[in-house]
């Protein structure tokens, strides 16, 4: 379970977060929804401990990201926002995954077995022993997911995982996310795509201008705003006319 309380963070003069509170419980998919630049990535970065909050705290399974950094990092698997997924082009897919496994202290037969398991789950036998240079977007994403899950984390964070994917890849991505939920893991993923969030999420947290403007199940959101259509509800809570101006 991921818990953030009253997170505040500014970069220079820019107030990125002005008090963000939400929870991503086990066995559920929580969607962090908001327009571009709303502050979706920053709370995730605070959870996985590459940024420190100015105020407030983030905990994973009750452990504080700031004080128990390594304990938190052992319990989360992260897919950071990135076009290239940050793979090492001169290493094979398997070597990329193995590197992260070793950094988590795994080794030997246990690690190799786990890597095979992930290759099977993500259907990447064909690419497993090829260098990742020249991989397609979808292939890179598979490697990055395998890498994020190699240590079997209880909590999974995905930052804009479907950006730029084709329909087939998006669909298999959704299967992976649902599979993780069914295993009882806490899944937190961010997106600016309404349809994706409504199709997948058990709970939605809407963020705009560094604040949480609404949260609850998709039905809760519809009821609160009085809009039957979730897209209308979304526009209603973040304030109209905030798109391209």
């Amino acid at each position: 379970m991921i818990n953030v309380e009253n997170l505040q963070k500014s970069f220079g003069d820019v107030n990125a977060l002005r008090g963000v509170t939400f929870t991503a419980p086990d066995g559920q998919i929580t969607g962090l929804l908001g327009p571009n630049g709303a502050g979706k990535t920053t709370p995730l970065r605070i959870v996985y401990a590459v940024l420190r909050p100015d105020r407030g705290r983030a905990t994973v399974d009750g452990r504080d990201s700031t004080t128990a950094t390594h304990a938190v990092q052992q319990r989360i698997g992260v897919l950071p926002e990135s076009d290239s997924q940050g793979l090492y082009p001169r290493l094979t897919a398997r070597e990329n995954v193995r590197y992260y496994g070793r950094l988590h202290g795994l080794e030997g037969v246990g690690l190799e077995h786990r890597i095979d398991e992930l290759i099977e789950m993500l259907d990447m036998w064909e690419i497993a022993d090829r260098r990742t240079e020249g991989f397609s977007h979808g292939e890179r994403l598979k490697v990055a997911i395998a890498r994020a899950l190699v240590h079997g984390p209880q909590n999974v964070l995905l930052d804009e995982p479907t950006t730029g994917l084709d329909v087939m890849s998006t669909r298999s991505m959704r299967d992976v996310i649902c599979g993780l939920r069914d295993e009882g893991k806490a899944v937190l993923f961010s997106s600016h795509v309404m349809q994706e969030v409504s199709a997948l999420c058990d709970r939605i947290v809407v963020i705009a201008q560094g604040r949480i403007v609404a949260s609850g199940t998709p039905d809760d959101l519809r009821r609160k705003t009085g809009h039957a259509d979730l897209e209308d509800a979304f526009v209603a809570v973040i304030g109209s006319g905030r798109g391209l101006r």
Partner: protein
Amino acid sequence: MRVEPIGVIFKKEVLDNLRDRRTLAGSLFYPLLGPLLMILLFSVMGQTLSTKAEEPLALPVLGAEQGPALMQFLEQSGAEIEPAPDDPEASVRAGEYDVVLIIPEGYEEDFRAGRPATVRLVVDPSRQAASVPADRARDLLASYSRQIGSLRLLARGVDPAITEAVIIERVDVSTSQSRTASLLNIVPYFVVFSIFVGAMYLIIDTTAGERERGSLEPLLINPVARSELVLGKLLAALPFAIFALLETLLGFFITLKVSPIEFVDVQLTLPFSALIVVFLVALPMTLLASALQMIIATFTHSFKEAQNYLGVLPLVPALPGLLMVFAPVKPKLWMMLIPTFGQQLLMNQAMRGEALAPLDVIVSAAVTLIAGLVLVFVAIKLYERERVLFG
């Protein structure tokens, strides 16, 4: 701090970079730059100096018929008299001839009358290659002049020795090895250069490159301390720097060993034992160079930008060494306090065959290692900041 993650990072970076053509080219080729330059230097110097000194001097003479006795003397002394070009001055200026001798009208008359008889030597001192033939021609003419002068004095019953008021006797105290060492002064420069350049591409790849390809953020999410991360990457750079150092030294050793050119009567040598001393003296610089490059590369945003800065970096510590080629200095203890400069002085001493002062060696190694460790500490602090993510 744990050993295992450092080992994991070290192994990955070494494997990754051994597969990188840029790293390999940098590690394999650049360290050979010094030895290659030395081969070039020797072949050019050796050719101009040795061959021109051994060949018979080809001397075009205008008005040879004016001085048959002089011509005879020149031919006996190993010169080959050739017909002169129509315009001696223009052809020397154009580089077609190294030197032309002109015997003007009236030479014979003055000579017979015992007056100073003028001959003209057309030379171009701005052409380095022409200096040897020009000097030889002048020496021949001067010795002819002395010889005739002595004969004239003897004919008048005067001892020719009376004209020599002072005799200069040259006492040369340089050993053959110390004479050689003045040429070896370029070695320390290239040793420092190699230490920097050998690990440069690996360091850029693991810092600026890591950020540029977006792999830094996922890497930082692993339960690994930043100090372990920095040490793993830094240790991966060391074998590349040490390999480059060894490659340069062996390159120089082989160059001097097989180089058949006898340079000014001295066979150039660099004893293997001196080579080992140079290697040990240079070793502490690898840590300093790698940590310094890592810090600079961490501030840059891309591979290209890092390359721009790190490309000129080796010139800075190598500059004193380069200056020493022209103005050698005597090592003093305070100089050992300057990392890389102390080593360059010690390397020079070792190659000259002098015994090194143990205190100098200890001070220079200790200061350089401490400076290296301070830089490692700074690099760790840099990586512990949030900003490392954004550059």
